[in-house]
């Protein structure tokens, strides 16, 4: 592969002069080597970020990222791209805020435009219970050093004129506002990390499913894949919805259930919404993409599902509620709808942990809110894999918390899956 070309305005002009024939591939796709120091299973955002920070922060560069399908084709390419860090519990606020702050400079770090747009995220309080909950989170955020404020319905209207404040069914009583939250281009996050990993000499191998994990004396020694047997020193499983399937192949079970979560986008319209609005009581999230489409996220299904298709009734519920809150969207047509398989834990908090198999680490359980966590998750996971010991960010998210009853309970905090 040609050496990485720095993306810049100058490079763009130069390439324009020669018909764009000089751009090298963003990442290379080699055949697997015999052995790697670390194998990461899963080339989604979290897996690639794990590999990137292993190389960047810990100088571990003999790394392969194995992907069953194509790069960024799972939940990384299926989410609604919302980035925020307004969580209740200290451990969550720490890792999500780390992540959000990494997003601020990610484009410069990776030399790849991830289109981070800190346009502000508001979570609407539409019941008195929810209003009190968000005031509580706001108080916690002040102590944690996460910049949020609780705003009045008038301020909501000022920030987002298309909201119907007065109900009748779901009046807006206030909102939790995080001005530096926002969105980013989801594919670009995966592509940017992949390009930077490839630059460090790491191997990204797509269409390479791990079919079994080989161990000797309780320690991982390698994996069997669709492209042959590969040895490894350490193994990081970062596969979101399929965590249970891969863990089973490594010989252990997880406190995880996989369910479908859906999203949809409307036809493009003129700019009408320049913030992200989350309405948790009615399970609807909405923002407007740069193309003008309204990007809408819904609630999760209630039963286990690996099919990447969700129930129609959840779309109906989400749209019905959003039309009431945003009357101007009532005649919009929806263009596309899709589902992703999310890995839900009992306390709705992630798992970054060592496992019963020595040398195997797992990063999963981000449930319905993994995209926002990609940089922080990769940062903390790389620390865990490199040192065989979680750092401060991951310390509370071990698998043992379910046995010991030390939950990081975010499910009650928000009242919904998130």
């Amino acid at each position, binding site marked *: 592969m040609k050496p990485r070309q720095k993306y810049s305005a100058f490079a763009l002009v130069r390439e324009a002069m020669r018909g764009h024939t000089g751009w090298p591939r963003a990442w290379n796709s080699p055949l697997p080597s015999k052995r790697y120091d670390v194998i990461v299973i899963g080339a989604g955002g979290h897996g690639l970020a794990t590999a990137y920070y292993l190389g960047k922060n810990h100088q571990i560069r003999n790394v392969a990222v194995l992907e069953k399908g194509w790069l960024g084709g799972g939940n990384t390419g299926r989410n609604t791209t919302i980035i925020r860090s307004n969580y209740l519990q200290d451990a969550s606020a720490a890792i999500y805020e780390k992540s959000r702050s990494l997003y601020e400079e990610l484009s410069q770090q990776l030399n790849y435009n991830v289109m981070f747009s800190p346009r502000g995220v508001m979570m609407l309080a539409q019941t008195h219970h929810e209003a009190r909950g968000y005031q509580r989170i706001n108080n916690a955020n002040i102590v944690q050093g996460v910049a949020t404020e609780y705003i009045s319905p008038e301020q909501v209207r000022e920030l987002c004129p298309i909201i119907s404040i007065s109900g009748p069914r779901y009046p807006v009583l206030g909102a939790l506002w995080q001005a530096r939250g926002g969105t980013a281009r989801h594919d670009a996050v995966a592509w940017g990390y992949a390009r930077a990993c490839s630059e460090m000499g790491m191997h990204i191998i797509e269409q390479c499913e791990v079919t079994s994990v080989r161990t000797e004396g309780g320690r991982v020694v390698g994996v069997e894949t669709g492209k042959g047997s590969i040895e490894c020193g350490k193994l990081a499983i970062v596969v979101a919805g*399929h965590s*249970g*399937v891969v863990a*089973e192949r490594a010989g252990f*079970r*997880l*406190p*995880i*259930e*996989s369910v479908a979560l859906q999203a949809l986008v409307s036809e493009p319209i003129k700019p009408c919404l320049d913030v992200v609005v989350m309405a948790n009581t009615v399970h609807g999230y909405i923002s407007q993409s740069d193309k003008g489409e309204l990007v809408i996220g819904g609630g999760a299904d*209630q*039963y*286990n*599902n*690996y*099919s990447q298709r969700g*129930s*129609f*009734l959840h779309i109906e519920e989400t749209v019905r509620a959003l039309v009431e809150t945003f009357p101007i969207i009532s005649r919009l047509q929806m263009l596309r709808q899709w589902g992703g398989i999310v890995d839900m*834990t*009992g306390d709705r908090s992630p798992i970054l942990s060592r496992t019963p198999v020595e040398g195997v680490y797992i990063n999963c359980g981000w449930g319905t809110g993994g995209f926002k966590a990609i940089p922080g998750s990769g940062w903390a996971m790389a620390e865990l894999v490199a040192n065989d010991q979680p750092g401060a960010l991951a310390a509370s998210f071990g698998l043992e918390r*379910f*046995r*010991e*009853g030390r939950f990081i309970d975010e499910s009650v905090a928000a009242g919904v899956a998130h």
Partner: protein
Amino acid sequence: MLKLTCPYCGIEADETELHGGGEAHLERAAGGAGDSELEQYLFIRSNPRGVHFERWHHIHGCGKWFHAARCTETMEVFGTYSAQTLRPPENTLSEIKRRRPNWVNA
């Protein structure tokens, strides 16, 4: 939309009429159980990609709990059966084996 036939009232119910209750046939941790048994019972799930036994509540119908055998990959339903049992009945198991010859009951 997922449809399940309630084995008590016989109605083929849409999922809007039902409430999912998670994995079935979990062994309840007995009194005096240790942390590991409680963890198994409360949190650890088989979460298979394929045949899954699960509990359902006919919440907007007859109000009874029942069991279903379903494929989490294709959404096929192999059968529904009474909640008053510790394991799936033979006819459900043979239906699963007929349609999934390689399936092993873990």
